């Protein structure tokens, strides 16, 4: 979790000045590298090298069994011009992002607001709401989800519509709800952000006659916007890469009728089921570029809606 990336509204006290400076800088750096070496080695061998190989393979027809042949951009042109299922997976993924991310952030914010105003038992409820995020990463909960939304499951019994996961119009929603339910991480971050907002702002607003809703819109939302932005970026990136819930809930096939065939699931299908590793690598690189572009757009848009408290001093 990279919570340190939250733009901190308060200035840090100058800790560096108080740190004792006995040893020469170069030697301390050397020791640092030694201690970092497991991580650096791991990052190089497990991330950098495989990424480079994947970039190379994306220009080949590698099928796991025969040596890869260089085919230039054919994987990319096939993807964009000859593969209707590729585009269906793109649309499905966008639908998923648009459903899951706002729902998840809204729920996280509502629960964080409720927790903030609680008097007792806050620690208990915070843990209770966070628990699904820990469970959610596991395959088992996704399988439970499949049972819940399958025909003959509790949702079918309650609503009597034959279960969601076998209806192409509803199955993606069942997958998205599994993600939404894991709102613990953004909730904890929201809660931290809410507690940073100075109480005197609310007191002053109350004196001026502002109601709860007015306070929320004029104080909470702008003061919380950096945290909201951080959560939005993080959850959007994660949503584009969603795999486990779609894989488990659809039984690994992205069905029914390709309705839960999200991008990474189709990538997996191409790579490990159909043995087109070159094509799958090309898909992975396109996804990386698209996520980069979407993140850049979010950052650009943030200038117009994210408010940093320190800006007020300028």
């Amino acid at each position, binding site marked *: 979790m990279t919570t340190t990336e939250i733009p901190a509204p308060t200035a840090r006290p100058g800790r560096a000045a108080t740190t004792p400076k006995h040893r020469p800088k170069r030697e301390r750096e050397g*020791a640092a590298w*030694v201690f970092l070496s497991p991580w650096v080695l791991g990052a190089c061998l497990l991330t950098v090298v495989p990424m480079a190989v994947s970039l190379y393979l994306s220009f080949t027809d590698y099928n796991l*069994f025969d040596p890869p042949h260089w085919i230039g951009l054919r994987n990319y042109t096939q993807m964009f011009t000859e593969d209707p299922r590729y585009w269906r997976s793109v649309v499905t993924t966008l639908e998923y992002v648009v459903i899951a991310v706002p729902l998840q952030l809204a729920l996280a914010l509502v629960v964080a607001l409720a927790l903030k105003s609680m008097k007792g038992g806050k620690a208990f409820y915070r843990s209770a709401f966070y628990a699904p995020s820990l469970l959610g990463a596991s395959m088992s909960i996704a399988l439970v989800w499949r049972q819940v939304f399958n025909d003959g499951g509790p949702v079918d019994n309650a609503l009597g519509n034959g279960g969601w996961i*076998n209806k192409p119009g509803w199955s993606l929603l069942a997958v998205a709800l599994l993600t939404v339910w894991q709102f613990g991480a953004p909730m904890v971050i929201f809660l931290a952000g809410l507690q940073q907002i100075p109480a005197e702002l609310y007191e002053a607003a109350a004196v001026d006659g502002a109601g709860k809703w007015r306070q929320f819109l004029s104080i909470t939302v702008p003061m919380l916007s950096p945290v909201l932005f951080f959560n939005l970026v993080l959850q959007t990136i994660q949503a584009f890469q969603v795999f486990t819930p779609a894989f488990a809930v659809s039984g690994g096939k992205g*069905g029914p*009728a390709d309705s839960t065939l999200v991008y990474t699931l189709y990538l997996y299908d191409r790579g490990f089921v159909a043995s087109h590793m070159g094509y799958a690598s090309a898909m992975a690189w396109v996804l990386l570029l698209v996520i980069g572009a979407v993140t850049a757009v979010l950052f650009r848009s943030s200038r117009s809606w994210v408010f940093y408290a320190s800006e007020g001093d300028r």
Partner: protein
Amino acid sequence: MPGHRTKGFCASAAALALCAMLAACGGSGESVGGGGKVVLRYAWWGNPDRATLTDKAVALFEKRHPNVQVQTSYSGYDAYKQKLAVQATGGDAPDVMQLDYRQINQYANGGVLLDLGKQKAVLHTSEIDQGLLATGKVDGTQYAIPQGRGTETIVYDAKAWKDSGVPLPQKGWTWDDWADDMRALAKKTGKPGATDPGWSEDGFEVWLRGQGKSLYTKDNGLGFTADDLTNWWTFTDQLRREGAVSPAEQTTQLAGFVENTPLARGKATSDNNWDAPASGYVSFIPTGIALAPMPSGEDGTPGQYFKPSMFMGVSANTGHPKESAELIDFMINDRDAAKILGATRGIPVNETIRKETEGRLKDFDKTISEYQASVDGTLKDPPQAPPSGDNALQSTFQRDYDQVSYERLSPRKAAENYITEAKAELRS
């Protein structure tokens, strides 16, 4: 560097040394075990009951070959297929591996498999039906040995069908007879007569062969046209609309295991499947199931065929080709091994052993054996091993039919999509 060693540096050096020690503790796989024994790795897919019997047989093999130690491992089919592909590409395939008909071409052409023809001295194949044996050949080379024999069947709830008053399925029935029976069953029982067979590439193949065609041509091209597939899907789609076969919501759940089928869930009276896995229905339908032949073409041409239910192959990288071949010979030709294994991998391929064991088979093993005997000699030769792309096309077939049964695409449009995808898959 300064001459004096600081505490920080010493600590980091110690940390590195510890890491090195940890790394050194990790064991390394060696093909020669303790006491100079030859160690073979043998992997297969299957259920725990198959594992118990296999381990028993392997123990007997080790007793007969004191210099050989066999390490076994197994998992479910999907997981097995993916793991084996990764191992094989890394040059680390198990010495002896179980293979599916759909894998043979890819693995043989990829140089993963050893030419077993060179191991004739220890691996005997003379008692295996030659047509069946040929299914393990790629370009004339014997890369794999079939281990069991299976054929497709219509499996049905015997009591429910009898009680409905619809005449029981007869040998030589056609697809039209079958369709009429499904309609009659649906009317009498109030639920679909069968699983919608449109999802299944295997079902389509039987229908296609009944017309004298095939899935693939000799040179691994497509053996049928968009018209053929449109006809098949129009046929099944019509039955689905009439309620004679299962609705889309049930058909889409099929994933190659019995629990998901409408028959096992009490939502249909029959299903089409391979005969050996049909034993899985027994626990769901306590009143009993029965097996009938697959429907044939209009002129009586049978579409089903005897297929090797699985193969055994040897890794091209094995250090012990002779011992590996001995293990295969033992599993296929040894009488005592056959006694232990029963029909866990289908009916034995060794003709002598098959005849000997026929009388001793019990319960559902006996049903399968009798069913196979009833169609033996009337079926045509099996097709050659499917091309490598077929592995992926099997799931593409089901996906494309989903679009038909959910009424998102017409049979014609979905069939055209499939042909396009299949051509791309077979070209690459």
